């Protein structure tokens, strides 16, 4: 074989190596990006959780005067907020979030029994603000779960699983909604 043939074979091999290398690098980069996206989407949930937590004392203060006989509901909300403020791990934060969501549901349901409270401008504003945050939180939880799902599928799929094994990647946990949160709130009249 002459120089020309060697050159052609060399370039062909180089191109194949580049395609394979680029492909593997692409898988690696996309796994790194997904792992960071999971962290980012969790942080985006956390921002909203903090915003909602900041609104809770105002909400409790605005309803306290009206709901003197609903100590249980208010205590549940205060405890849930304390649990959130003390939460350190992702699991603890998720649990506290579920507690707050459940307590808020109960509070807004019970508020239906107090027409004066329902007509209070301050309460209406807080309720709207918190409901808005709840909706955004629901979307972001869904987004977080989508990202985790994409990541989990990817690290188990061929050929990405080889790169994922090399990177020692493990499946991430989804944001779970508790049975209590899924259930309808019972309002006692």
């Amino acid at each position: 074989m002459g120089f020309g043939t060697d050159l052609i074979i060399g370039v062909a091999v180089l191109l194949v190596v580049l395609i394979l290398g680029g492909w593997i690098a692409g898988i690696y980069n996309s796994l790194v990006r997904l792992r960071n996206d999971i962290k980012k989407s969790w942080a985006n949930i956390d921002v909203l959780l903090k915003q909602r937590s900041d609104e809770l004392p105002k909400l409790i203060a605005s309803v306290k005067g009206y709901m003197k006989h609903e100590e249980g509901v208010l205590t549940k909300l205060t405890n849930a907020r304390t649990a959130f403020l003390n939460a350190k791990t992702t699991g603890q934060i998720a649990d506290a979030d579920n507690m707050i969501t459940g307590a808020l549901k109960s509070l807004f349901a019970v508020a239906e029994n107090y027409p004066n409270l329902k007509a209070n401008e301050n309460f209406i504003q807080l309720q709207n603000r918190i409901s808005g945050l709840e909706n955004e939180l629901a979307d972001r939880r869904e987004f977080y779960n989508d990202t985790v799902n994409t990541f989990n599928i990817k690290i188990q799929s061929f050929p990405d699983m080889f790169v994922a094994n090399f990177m020692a990647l493990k499946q991430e946990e989804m944001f779970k909604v508790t049975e209590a949160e899924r259930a309808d709130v019972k309002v006692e009249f």
Partner: protein
Amino acid sequence: MLYLPLLTLFKANSILLTVFKAGSSDLPIYALVGFVIGIFLFYQGFKWMRQKQLIESTPTSKIRSLAMGLVEIFGNVIPSEGKILKSPFSNSDCVYYRYTVEEYKNHGKRSQWDTIMTGDGRELFFLKDDTGMVLVDSNGAEIDIPQDNQYQTGGLFGKPVPKTIESFLKTKNASATGFLGIGRQLRFTEWFIAPKDKLYILGTAADNPFVKTSSRNEENIIIKKGSNESTYFISDKSEAQVLSGFKWKVWGGLLGGSALILICLLALLWFFKVL
């Protein structure tokens, strides 16, 4: 989607074949040009691969809860108040348009359509899904939409020039008639994004400079080309169709580019009798 890499490959290969057949001394130049195109295609293949992976790994966001950074959204186009454009040839309402004017010209033995004018126009618009709407600045986006209208004047298949095209030509100090009043063979093509069009957008959510602070999250955001993330893609196709298009582009770029590099290298070696 596959159009660009295939066309480039086809053009370069047809030139090479012509040169091979003719035994032209221009072969090294053509081969060198083909080689550079091959490298460009190969590089583009990797770029498209990255874009494809980004689309695959970015979940769709609801507009109401958009977070800053790279986002993928779906929705319908709503024009910003009073900011509506007219497409240049059909005078349709739109928020973005692009056009080309081509003329059929003879180049020795060959005749082809040469582009003599191109242009575009855009306005800010909103994208609305079932949770809210967000402002979009399409500047710098790669916009993948099908051709909306095409008109041809002069020649055998030419129709009379529509009034909108006449007035367009007037604004550009051009005319559809050439020497001795004979109609020039012109082709006018336009693409546009109209109100209510359904769009897929992969872009960067950033602070909206037109709003100080709003209680609604999405009002504080504008979708635009990111300063750190260069990917900004707008299409009227579904995500699955966009991905399928990218799949073909990736393989077209990588394999087509590789083939072109090898063929041109082979031609060069053959010409210089190194083989």
